[in-house]
């Protein structure tokens, strides 16, 4: 397809990527609630059913267990299903299928069975979604052996990572932040780019402090970095892109460069992905550290519909800038 001059939103790139992968490989199918006729509640699958028919783009009943489970069985028989959960908050009923089945299948069959499924779900708050349309749950999958967890921050990465996830022979949990679906456009000229899972991206260079983050956090970090630059503090931003397994080498390089680290994500702070990265640094990069390893995450709370309480729980650029300055001054 020809790239619109203005570039594309993340939703458009995800939609184009699904269409291209389905055209390229007849084994790729999409299933989920309202993914067909409606094209998904966020339009990520818009137009696919008209093009590929009601079986390859299957409107399922409200049955998360069998959405995940049928995707697994179909994958074992050679398909490459992309299973959509309408919201990350509604993946929980399928938890058993994803962690006890998809994650264990290859290992427990000593390599005989493959489960090339992408479990897709819109995640994240700040959109007035309330308790059940706001969750960031990547940690619940990052702890599970056999799963990879991806959270893109830009339209280009969303396309390149989804392409990699679909072609990967193992299950991938793929979270898309609702707040990024239509947040700005990006020129994505290479529609065949496959971004390897597990590789971080240096989003911004700066020698004073490293902010290691992913997803929406990248955008909070950019804003904070701008503010700090005004005060002469240079911030490096590392976008992990894949939360599990995360890019240890890239993290190590960044810590070696700055010696001061802020870990940032929207997921709840306690036992969130940042805890793992902080522990890794405290264990293996201890001597490189010039300051405490700071973490910013959501305030260990469910997310409400009302704006003031939600804002009080979610991380914001102001708090990130403050932490960067604290580290710089340490």
């Amino acid at each position: 397809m020809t790239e619109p001059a203005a570039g594309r939103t993340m939703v458009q790139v995800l939609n184009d990527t699904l269409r291209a992968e389905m055209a390229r490989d007849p084994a790729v199918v999409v299933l989920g609630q309202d993914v067909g006729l409606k094209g998904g509640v966020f339009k990520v699958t818009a137009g696919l059913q008209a093009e590929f028919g009601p079986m390859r783009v299957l409107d399922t009943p409200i049955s998360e267990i069998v959405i995940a489970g049928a995707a697994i069985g179909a994958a074992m028989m050679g398909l490459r299903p992309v299973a959509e959960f309408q919201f990350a908050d509604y993946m929980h009923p399928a938890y058993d299928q994803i962690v006890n089945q998809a994650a264990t299948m290859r290992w427990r069959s000593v390599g005989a069975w493959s489960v090339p499924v992408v479990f897709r779900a819109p995640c994240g708050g700040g959109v007035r979604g309330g308790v059940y349309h706001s969750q960031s749950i990547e940690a619940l999958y990052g702890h599970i052996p056999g799963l990879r967890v991806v959270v893109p921050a830009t339209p280009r990465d969303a396309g390149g990572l989804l392409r990699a996830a679909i072609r990967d022979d193992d299950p991938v949990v793929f979270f898309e932040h609702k707040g990024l679906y239509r947040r700005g456009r990006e020129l994505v000229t290479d529609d065949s780019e496959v971004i390897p899972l597990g590789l971080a991206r240096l989003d911004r260079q700066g020698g004073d402090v490293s902010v290691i983050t992913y997803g929406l956090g990248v955008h909070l970090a950019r804003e904070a970095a701008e503010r700090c630059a005004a005060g002469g503090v240079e911030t490096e931003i590392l976008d992990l892109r894949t939360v599990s397994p995360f890019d240890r080498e890239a993290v190590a390089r960044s810590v070696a460069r700055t010696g001061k680290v802020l870990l940032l994500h929207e997921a709840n702070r306690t036992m969130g992905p940042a805890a793992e990265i902080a522990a890794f640094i405290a264990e293996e990069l201890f001597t490189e550290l010039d300051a405490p390893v700071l973490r910013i995450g959501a305030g260990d709370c469910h997310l409400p519909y009302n704006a003031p309480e939600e804002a009080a729980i979610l991380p914001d650029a102001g708090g990130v800038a403050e932490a960067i300055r604290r580290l710089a001054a340490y």
Partner: protein
Amino acid sequence: MSVPDGPPIREDLLLRIYRVAVLTRALDHQLWLLTRQGRAGFVLTGRGQEIAQIASAAAMRRGHDSAWPYYRDMGVGLALGVTPYEIMLGALARAADPHSGGRQLTMHLSSPSLRIGSISSAIAAHLPHAVGAAYAARVRGDDSVALCWFGDGAASEGATHEAMNLAAVHRLPVVFICENNGIAISVPLALQMPVERVSDRAAAYAMPGVSVDGTDAEAVYAVTRTAVERARGGEGPSLLELRVPRITPHSSQDDDAYRSDEQRAAAAAADPLPRLRETLVERGLLSLDEDDRLVRETREQVVADEDLALAMPAPPPERARRWLHAGDPPHGGAVLPARYAGWAGVFGD
């Protein structure tokens, strides 16, 4: 199996059901308006399902039986005594909202005093709760019944199967009420289940399954009343299917483009309110003048509630983590307008 017809409805009750239906519709109308004006962030109502909701709720013993509605059940809430003012507070995410303090989306009711469980957006997650409430009644030896409302799409969830099965194995006092509007967001019934009627599911649990026109207040009341008494009498759960139209889009964030003009027109044509009004007028229980006044006064009442609610403050940010665990000071609820003194929905007077 099928439940024998229940006792005929008392005519004054029929009129009360209509009054609450008019109130539900007025509130529904006002909430959509608020959302279009951008003063409410989101709206999701049950236009077309009011009579099914109110007439079924009217069959329970209020404050004694427990109610487990879902997000579309404004009619159930108002019938049980929730005030429009409270629903306004919730839709506008005000701190005083006694149901969730503005933490949940519109219409996510919760009221221990009215024995209404806390509504979760998660489809079918509340059916097991209703079964647990019925189990508690059995353990404690009281004769309360748990009524549980849900949509046709909710019937596809594993939770629904497990809940109905456990209730049926122990003949627990539960009434499962499916408001079948034929669609789940964009997914039509034929893609949701292979059976003609949700009530066909009852056979799998050896419980009575009845399907009635959910726009027929008398039929809804009769079958619900029968199922409630049956449950109270220790004869176990029932599954009721109330066939209703979905007149609006799924919510204010849905374009309804997946339905044809004919389908949308057919839904609108099945509106239960005119039908009940006709019945009442025919039977001389309501004159058209009385109806005009009722509709006008009800709209004024709702607008008055809206003005009050709009004047109330949003939750303070520092409150965000309160009530994660026991021990925090109580929320305190909302101060209701004087007009709601003694208000008790369909059970009023």
